[in-house]
């Protein structure tokens, strides 16, 4: 049986009964030796043994929800156990012979038992009573089971019959009395046919006869009205029932010994049976044909059980139990960029898009691949050909190469497939794949037509092959992994990793994770080991985060590991899943039903660790600031990794904070915490740390706190703090601590005090010697006198020169003397906001010399910049006719298409095609056809002065070609970069043009606004002019973009005019004779259409100037306009004040040419008004207006175009 997968095996005596725990990975096994074992089949450990039965135990069952199980044995007893307290709770006595099977009811507190005493009994385990005895079989009843939903029981007996019992009467009797009406009772009494003992609780509904020998086992189908039974006639019989009758459907013949048990597959149309012929057999429910069979050498099978939820089975035999699966549940899948291709349970190929989180409809049906009950094993995807390689274990391994249809149009059968035999098949290149054959140990390299181009003999015995990077394979043998170069047919590298089952490449292809059953080994693409880790629980799958973190799943967890081997748990799993992709907080996976799922995770921990490893402090800081990354694990991790200063940022607990602060030498925090905790031990440690840092002020404080007077005195001595030393002496006196007094006196060189002290404590000889040593003869005398001693009585040592106290050379006490660098770490600085780059707020713009109060507007202007393009355009540009060109450029004729296929001669370069294909000047520039580009610009917008456009010309031209090194010795091949990447029609291809509208809008325009904001007007004019020069040579995709470009040109024009006016005004601002012009220009500055905050700046400046120059009416006018725009903030208050003050005065000192009520534009050359109705000329490109006398001159704004030149309008769009 090729695909039965054994998950667990136990060795014991004969196993007669088996039960799966519905939730936990446990299995109960009752043995012929009276023992009941409880195994964890996932870990393979024996959890418990229950031994109270006397003789073989034949039946066991777990309760679905309660921590209970039931057992029945040859001691006629039924026992109910608690696996929590590990004790038998009670015993149900009543059967008169061996108990064969016991089962709990799925919802009622009932136990069903069958016994060799020919009865079937139902027990209530809550009140521990027998509630029903079903008699009728006239031989041993071997098995009895409840129906999973209805009130039915089915039983099997050695009397060769299977019986179906109706127990609805019993249910009614034992449900709450209110639910039974009088009519019910009557009906029951009259209609139910009583058995021969007058028992109506359980009545025989059907008797199924067909087996020729005794029947050993019987069970219901979980959903259909079907029954399966197994008997000593070696047959497995399928029965069907309706409301009124039941009949035999078919027989599955194949066992050549007694068949001991059978059941329906919980999810698939399969029957499983076991027998004494040592086989487990799988049958097709619909065809009743054998699908698979599995034979054990020596052990007869006695029982089989199915897990209620998971796809697991257990069979008991002479020497224990085996837990197995019928098929691999790992779906075949392949991830490519943002897509996964997988095969679902219906054997349909589907894809799932990680960007849009959508699953495609079925793309292909692989129904015919392999055999019907065997799912495909692997899938390999080739994006270049959009083809898949699928392998199936059927027939010793087969593979198929299938092209995916262009769009998913449903589960169509593939039309064009190529197949062959092989155990593994993977794409190794765009047009090559490798097929590995285990039995012959060969790897065939095949091309897409499935013909072998190369055949490789494996260097050692290999189990599986995986993609090993371009042109390479990873060969997995039981003990090593080999990186094998297909081209050169040689082993590049070898790494001893045992039992590698899967290989997962990182997204950048630089690393791979080798997954074994219990190990994850990360290697580089050259197969050098990076790290390795061990898991006790089976590892199922893995996927890489873009940052290079490996996430892997075990049976019940998602975990991560960094390249350096640091790992941790991310979350627990309810069910086993196969990870396919990580994106942000989402983990994409396939579950065992091969359905795509998205799980949420918190990536903070591993991202943080990753940032730490990569020393990406900015990101760490972000995480520290924005997330609540707490918990002991991260702190101890940081401590272990030598980052106590970072850990410090997370901790609140003062004790831990103190420890961390000491560890990283952060005295400030340590002092703070020590104060809070105030424990002598902490002060001691703080003192030691402070001392080692040379921070004697903290040391002093700790000594004071600890009342270590002697240490304090010594500290004062070494730091030369004489005052404090004196104070210490006084304190010592105060405390009458003579030792301390003596010590301080020595430190201070204070002989008198010492003598005095000796005298006080009656140590006259010492006092005498001291006095003598310091040559204080008088004192000597007085001592002798006072003590009544003579000099002879005092033994004098040889006295040298008296010691003098050390002089203070450096007043260390005044300042700390740092011994060790305890600088603040980056994080601390950053967290304190000292690192400038970390502050997110803009520095306020420098206000200009005239101090217009620009900085007040900064925030507002920022707010408006983003919305610039949403503002509606009012003016309809005149020169923007998008109509046809009359340059005849479109007339490219058809001769190109039919380029005659001569063998000689030179063709037309792609650049020439571009120029043919486009009426846009920029495209001609890219094509290198500068003359025609200039012609176009001249006709479209009247361009005459091209000099300022030279950088733009060369920029576009430079972006148009790439240089591909080709044959050695020749110059590189020139290729032409297109913006029409998907286009191959030579009549439609067009060149790439650098710096598109988007970049102009988001980068250069904003630069211009900042220049305005920062009052860098000269620079601003340059920037805006540059915007114009870029836009004059650009291309766009859509009508709306054309509008946008127009709008930007207009904006840039307005700003250039406004800035130029203000610059001109500044030129004469200090000239008192020009007051009138000064005021006029200030007023005109308010005229161009600027963004609101910038307009306010202009108004503000004009208002101030007008007020200064006592043009009160004018000032009031500007003030009103300011207030109309914005009536709040400092600027508005100011305006209000000026308005009030001006209105009081109500007159203008200087009369200027500015009529606030008239409609007018500003001439961009003379900066004088052009009143509405007056004649003017326009610049064809910028739309700037001029007095007619400027016609024919160079536009002041663009400096490229000619004022009033005839023009057809700028073309930016090809069609």
């Amino acid at each position, binding site marked *: 049986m090729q695909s039965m997968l054994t998950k667990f095996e136990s060795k014991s005596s004969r196993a007669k009964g088996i039960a799966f725990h519905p939730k936990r990975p446990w299995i109960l096994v009752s043995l012929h030796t009276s023992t009941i074992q409880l195994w964890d089949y996932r870990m393979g450990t024996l959890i418990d043994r229950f031994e109270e039965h006397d003789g073989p135990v034949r039946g066991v069952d777990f309760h679905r929800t309660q921590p209970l199980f039931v057992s029945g044995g040859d001691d006629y007893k039924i026992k109910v156990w608690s696996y929590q307290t590990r004790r038998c709770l009670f015993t149900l006595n009543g059967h008169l012979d061996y108990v064969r099977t016991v089962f709990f009811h799925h919802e009622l507190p009932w136990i069903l038992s069958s016994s060799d005493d020919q009865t079937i009994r139902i027990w209530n385990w809550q009140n521990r009573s027998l509630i029903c005895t079903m008699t009728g079989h006239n031989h041993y009843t071997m098995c009895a089971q409840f129906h999973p939903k209805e009130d039915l029981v089915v039983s099997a007996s050695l009397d060769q019959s299977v019986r179906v019992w109706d127990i609805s009467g019993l249910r009614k009797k034992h449900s709450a009395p209110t639910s039974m009406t009088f009519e019910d009772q009557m009906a029951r009494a009259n209609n139910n046919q009583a058995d021969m003992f007058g028992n109506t609780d359980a009545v025989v509904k059907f008797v199924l006869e067909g087996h020729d020998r005794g029947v050993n086992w019987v069970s219901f189908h979980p959903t259909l009205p079907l029954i399966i039974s197994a008997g000593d006639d070696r047959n497995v019989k399928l029965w069907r029932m309706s409301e009124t009758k039941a009949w035999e459907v078919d027989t599955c013949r194949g066992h050549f010994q007694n068949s001991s048990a059978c059941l329906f597959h919980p999810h698939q149309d399969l029957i499983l049976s076991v027998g004494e012929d040592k086989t487990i057999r799988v049958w097709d429910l619909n065809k009743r044909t054998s699908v698979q069979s599995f034979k054990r050498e020596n052990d007869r099978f006695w029982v089989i059980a199915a897990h209620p939820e998971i796809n697991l089975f257990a069979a008991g035999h002479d020497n224990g139990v085996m837990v197995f699966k019928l098929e691999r549940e790992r779906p075949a899948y392949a991830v490519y960029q943002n897509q996964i291709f997988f095969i679902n349970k219906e054997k349909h190929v589907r894809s799932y898009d990680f960007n849009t989180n959508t699953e495609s409809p079925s793309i292909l049906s692989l129904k015919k691949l392999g055999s019907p009950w065997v799912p495909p094993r692997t899938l390999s995807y080739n994006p270049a050909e959009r083809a898949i390689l699928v392998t199936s274990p059927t027939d010793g391994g087969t593979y198929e190469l299938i092209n995916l249809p262009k769009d998913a149009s449903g589960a169509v059968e593939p039309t064009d497939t190529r197949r062959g035999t092989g155990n593994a098949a993977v794409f190794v290149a765009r047009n090559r794949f490798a097929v590995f054959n285990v039995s012959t140990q060969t790897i065939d390299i095949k091309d897409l037509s499935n013909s072998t181009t*190369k055949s490789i003999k494996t260097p050692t015995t290999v189990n599986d092959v995986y993609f090993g990077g371009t*042109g390479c394979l990873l060969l997995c043998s039981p003990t090593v992994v080999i990186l094998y170069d297909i081209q050169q047919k040689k082993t590049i590298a070898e790494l001893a990793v045992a039992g590698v089952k899967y290989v997962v490449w990182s997204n950048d292809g630089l690393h791979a994770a080798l997954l074994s059953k219990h190990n994850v080994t990360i290697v580089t693409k050259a197969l050098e080991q990076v790290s390795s880790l061990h898991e006790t629980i089976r590892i199922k799958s893995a996927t890489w985060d873009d940052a290079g973190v490996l996430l892997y799943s075990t049976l019940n967890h998602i975990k991560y590991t960094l390249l350096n081997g640091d790992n941790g748990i991310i979350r627990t799993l309810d069910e086993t899943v196969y990870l396919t992709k990580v994106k942000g907080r989402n983990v994409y996976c396939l579950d065992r039903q091969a359905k795509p799922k998205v799980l949420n995770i918190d990536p903070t921990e591993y991202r943080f660790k990753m940032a730490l490893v990569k020393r990406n402090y900015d990101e760490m800081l972000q995480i520290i600031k924005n997330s609540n990354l707490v918990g002991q694990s991260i702190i101890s991790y940081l401590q272990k990794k030598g980052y106590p200063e970072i850990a410090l940022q997370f901790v609140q607990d003062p004790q831990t904070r103190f420890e961390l602060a000491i560890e990283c030498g952060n005295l400030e925090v340590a002092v703070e915490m020590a104060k809070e905790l105030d424990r002598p031990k902490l002060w001691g440690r703080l003192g030691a740390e402070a001392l080692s840092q040379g921070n004697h002020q903290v040391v002093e404080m700790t000594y004071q706190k600890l009342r270590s007077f002697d240490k304090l005195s010594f500290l004062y001595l070494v730091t030369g703090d004489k005052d404090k030393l004196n104070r210490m002496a006084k304190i010592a006196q105060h405390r009458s601590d003579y030792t301390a007094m003596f010590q301080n006196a020595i430190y201070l060189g204070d002989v008198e005090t010492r003598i005095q002290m000796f005298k006080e404590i009656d140590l006259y000889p010492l006092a005498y010697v001291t006095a003598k040593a310091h040559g204080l003869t008088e004192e000597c005398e007085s001592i002798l006198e006072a003590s009544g001693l003579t000099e002879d009585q005092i033994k004098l040592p040889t006295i040298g020169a008296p010691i003098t106290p050390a002089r203070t050379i450096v007043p260390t006490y005044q300042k700390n003397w740092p011994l060790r660098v305890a600088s603040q770490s980056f994080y601390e600085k950053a967290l304190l906001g000292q690192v400038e780059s970390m502050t997110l707020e803009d520095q306020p713009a420098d206000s200009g010399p005239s101090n217009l109060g620009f900085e007040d507007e900064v925030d507002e202007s920022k707010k408006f910049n983003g919305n610039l393009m949403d503002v509606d355009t009012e003016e309809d540009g005149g020169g923007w006719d998008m109509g046809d060109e009359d340059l005849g450029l479109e007339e490219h004729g058809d001769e190109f298409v039919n380029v005659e296929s001569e063998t000689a001669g030179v063709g037309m370069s792609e650049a020439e095609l571009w120029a043919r294909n486009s009426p846009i000047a920029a495209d001609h520039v890219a094509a290198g056809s500068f003359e025609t580009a200039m012609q176009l610009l001249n006709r479209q917008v009247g361009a005459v002065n091209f000099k300022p456009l030279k950088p733009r010309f060369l920029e576009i031209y430079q972006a148009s070609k790439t240089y591909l*090194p080709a044959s050695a010795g020749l110059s590189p091949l020139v290729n032409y970069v297109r913006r029409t990447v998907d286009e191959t029609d030579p009549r439609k291809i067009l060149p790439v043009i650098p710096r598109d509208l988007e970049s102009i809008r988001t980068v250069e325009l904003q630069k211009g606004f900042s220049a305005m904001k920062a009052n860098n007007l000269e620079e601003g004019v340059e920037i805006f002019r540059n915007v114009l020069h870029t836009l004059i040579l650009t291309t766009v995709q859509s009508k709306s973009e054309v509008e946008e470009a127009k709008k930007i040109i207009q904006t840039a024009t307005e700003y250039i005019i406004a800035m130029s006016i203000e610059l001109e005004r500044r030129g004469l601002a200090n000239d008192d004779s020009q007051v009138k012009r000064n005021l006029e220009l200030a007023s005109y500055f308010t005229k161009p259409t600027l963004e609101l905050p910038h307009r306010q700046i202009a108004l503000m400046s004009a208002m101030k100037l007008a007020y200064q120059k006592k043009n009160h009416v004018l000032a009031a006018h500007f003030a009103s306009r300011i207030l109309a725009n914005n009536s709040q903030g400092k600027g508005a208050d100011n305006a209000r004040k000026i308005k009030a003050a001006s209105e009081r005065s109500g007159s203008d000192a200087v009369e200027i040419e500015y009529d606030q009520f008239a409609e007018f534009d500003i001439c961009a050359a003379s900066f004088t008004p052009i009143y509405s109705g007056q004649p003017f000329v326009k610049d064809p490109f910028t739309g700037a207006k001029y007095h007619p006398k400027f016609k024919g001159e160079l536009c002041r704004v663009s400096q490229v175009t000619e004022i009033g030149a005839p023009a057809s309008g700028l073309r930016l769009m090809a069609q």
Partner: protein
Amino acid sequence: MDPFSSEGELLTIHNAFHSGLYSTVIDTDTSALSPANVIAARVYVFRARIALGQASDVIAELEGENDVPDLAAVTAFAEYTEGEKVAAVTAIEGLVESASDNATVQVLGATVLQREGRSDEALAVLAKHQGSLEAVALAVQIRLSQNRLDLAIKEVSTAKRWAQDSLLVNLAESWVGLRVGGEKYQQAYYVYEELAQAPGSSTARTLVGQAVAELHLGRIEEAEVALQQALQKTPADPDALANMLVLETISGKEDAGGMEALRKADPAHPLLVDLDEKSSLFDRAAAKYTVKVGA
């Protein structure tokens, strides 16, 4: 057996040469080769050395061996690269006459003729090849530089019939693909990526190829990465520098010294020559317009 077939002993050196792994070519042990292949292997070694700028050494070394047409062609090619163009071209012309069926003569002869601008003659020489992929590749390149995409496609599809899995055919197909565009960009990318990412053939040359394909696909960031890798491998690779310049221009970045670096690495690089030409063209063209300067 074809010495360049997948089983042949010249495959490694051939692939290394065309991937730009010149030092590998030079270090290849040619002593173990069968006598029939020794000359061919030596030609590769010499050409690799010429490519690394050791042309004069090669000339010196080959003194007296010029009776073998292969080596004579190498000498002439070396002389040509050294700047002795007239003598070299005469030598080549002679060889092309006398040994027109020699593959080395064909390839090197055509290379020299093409560089002389005599494309049609070069193609005529190459047309005589008998199963030389290098000749095919060269012909494809010459066709492409003549902008005869149709003929280049023809060359490639003919060659594909008899040598599908060869490196050179794949490369030539990519060259053509980069002119055709559309889906072919992606296919060209695959070829170069395969080479550039395989440990045995990752060179500045192949990386530049990958980057160029990515550039044409509009994947600017990826292309930048590939070019950076190329520049890591060979810091002053002129083509990598040139394409980096192009890339920076496309992405709207300011030139950060790339132009300077390129001028230093290869002052005669087509990009520089071309730009200078266009710069003066601009000035000439702009001068045709008169500007009336306002008062």
